[in-house]
């Protein structure tokens, strides 16, 4: 580029009058730069799409042995026994673990997030709304493993010593609905069965609660944005008819319900895929138990725990199979969330 001006000086007189010269070397170079950068951008995009496709192909390929040898039985069996020769693989326990922890996270996280968003948009004075919003979003910046460490050394002992004994004391004696039998022959009752085994601190409840904190920021942020788009005209219309603050807020929540559903699904997607923090508090056992105080395992958790140990082909293939199931469930949740959120964006541009 140092020679730029001279190059222009030397080539400028060469141009003949009457047409726009094609021989300007500077312009040729500029055009080449165009081609090169556009090409690089294309390359980057193709590489990214290629990686996505490759991951999917590798997952399917890697799990092919499992897909053909285990097939649908993978989803009906909860035994996970990787001993060579008599090995047996079922994803059910991990599917259950993921489902239960995600359910607990949503059960606790959705009201918390929506409540926080309502506070930020409809209660907090200006000087408070910004900082509160910022602090909630800061929760998303904490690394997963830091949550795990905190969960393991602070939350779990606290649950075990203070919270779970209380829940245990209140739920254990209640035997409302008979729900079958334990393997020991003892009869099981709801809700007493939810606390069977007594406080442990490393269990489904702990896994669900750590996920609750981790999905708070995303649900809160999106719900906040959705509520902020509630039109002032409609708000005044409701107040003008004598609606109370809460009745007007209900109207706002109703107005944004599609967006809020999208937010919840995004949070759910995060809960399904979350790995590190969960395995540090969930107890890591491949069992299905109705008890919130029983240890469990999630799909993401089993992959992180056992990827080093998968030393024979079917074991490895079963791991890939778990990864495939995990990816498909996360993908479906995220696509659904995106669909809902794009629908409200469409509504907003039309309005």
């Amino acid at each position, binding site marked *: 580029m140092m020679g730029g001006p001279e190059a222009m000086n030397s080539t400028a007189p060469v141009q003949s009058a009457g047409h726009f010269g094609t021989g300007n070397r500077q312009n040729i170079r500029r055009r080449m730069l165009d081609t090169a950068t556009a090409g690089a951008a294309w390359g980057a995009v193709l590489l990214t799409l290629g990686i996505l496709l490759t991951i999917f192909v590798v997952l399917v390929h890697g799990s092919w042995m499992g897909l053909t040898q285990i097939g649908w039985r993978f989803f009906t069996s909860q035994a996970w026994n990787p001993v060579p020769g008599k090995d047996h693989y079922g994803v059910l326990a991990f599917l259950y673990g993921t489902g239960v922890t995600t359910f607990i996270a949503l059960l606790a996280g959705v009201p918390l997030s929506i409540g926080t968003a309502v506070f930020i948009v409809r209660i907090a004075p200006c000087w408070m709304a910004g900082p509160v919003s910022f602090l909630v979003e800061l929760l998303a910046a904490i690394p997963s493993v830091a949550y795990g460490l905190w969960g393991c050394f602070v939350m779990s002992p606290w649950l075990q010593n203070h919270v779970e004994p209380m829940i245990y004391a209140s739920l254990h004696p209640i035997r409302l609905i008979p729900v079958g039998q334990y393997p020991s022959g003892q009869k099981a009752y709801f809700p007493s069965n939810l606390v069977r085994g007594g406080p442990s601190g490393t269990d489904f409840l702990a896994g669900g609660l750590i996920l609750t904190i981790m999905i708070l920021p995303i649900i809160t942020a999106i719900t906040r944005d959705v509520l902020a788009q509630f*039109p002032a*005209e*409609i708000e*005044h*219309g*409701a*107040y*003008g*008819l*004598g*609606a*109370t603050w809460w*009745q007007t807020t209900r*109207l706002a929540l*109703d*107005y944004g319900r599609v967006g809020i559903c999208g937010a919840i699904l995004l949070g759910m997607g995060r809960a399904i895929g979350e790995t590190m923090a969960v395995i540090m508090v969930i107890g890591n056992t491949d069992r299905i138990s109705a008890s919130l105080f029983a240890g469990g395992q999630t799909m993401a958790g089993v992959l992180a725990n056992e990827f080093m140990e998968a030393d024979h082909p079917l074991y490895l293939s079963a791991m890939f199979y778990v990864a495939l199931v995990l990816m498909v469930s996360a993908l479906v949740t995220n696509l659904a969330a995106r669909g809902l959120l794009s629908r409200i964006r469409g509504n907003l541009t039309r309005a």
Partner: protein
Amino acid sequence: MAPPQVTDMVGRLHGHSLPAPAAKTIPITAPAKPAAYAIEMENLEVFYGKQRAVHGVNLRVRRNEVTAFIGPSGCGKTTILRCLNRMNDLIPHCQVRGSIKIHGADVYSRRTDVMELRKRTGMVFQKANPFPRSIFENVAYPLRIHGVRGKHVLAAKVEQALRAAGLWEEVKDRLHVSGAALSGGQQQRLCIARALAADPDVLLMDEPCSALDPIATKGIEALINQLCQTITIVIVTHNMHQAVRVAHQTAFFYMGSLIESGPTDKIFNTPDHPQTLAYVTGQFG
């Protein structure tokens, strides 16, 4: 019912814009209604922060008549309107002094139930603001929030309100489609029906036709003429012709003060104050 209303309106329109048939229209502009006042404002002052937006307004609004508030932008007419049902409570740093009585009850008394006040003082806004719900649910909304239950009661009241707003025939077959699917004029009549469903004594209208085409405007004006037989209407308007067409009484505001008020034909034909004359003849504003 509809044809005589239209003639009324047209008659009154001609009465004010042309001098000749004025005498004929006097009985219409000054009907024999009880001379009680629905709204009484005494020394009303409104502050936004430290800035005074309304200066000591004394005004009485007659019962079961249409009163128009006119004046250039920023003259305080909408502010005053929004004091009447305490919508200004929603604006931070807005302070109201003086007194407003609606049917003798003090609006700014500590004992006033604002929700009840707003229910009995319906408000129609500049921009039609149907809720993101069905036509039926829009009209049922004020009933539901004020605790009306029962399918049949709701259905009857919704029909009554839609009929009163002149919308029933147009929407009776599609009560369950979204209120946003209606045309602009229909949406505004839906909002009027919604306000009427709460059975108000007073209807406050803040430039209800400013976003509507002439035909829809005509419809709303005919409706106003009809509604004022049973309720008191205060309408803020930028359109002086509209004030002439619909209002029995007119109040002219300028820079936050009430300059003059009185029967509409007097304000528009022989006002006492030179500023009123300048405004109604289009010399400013």
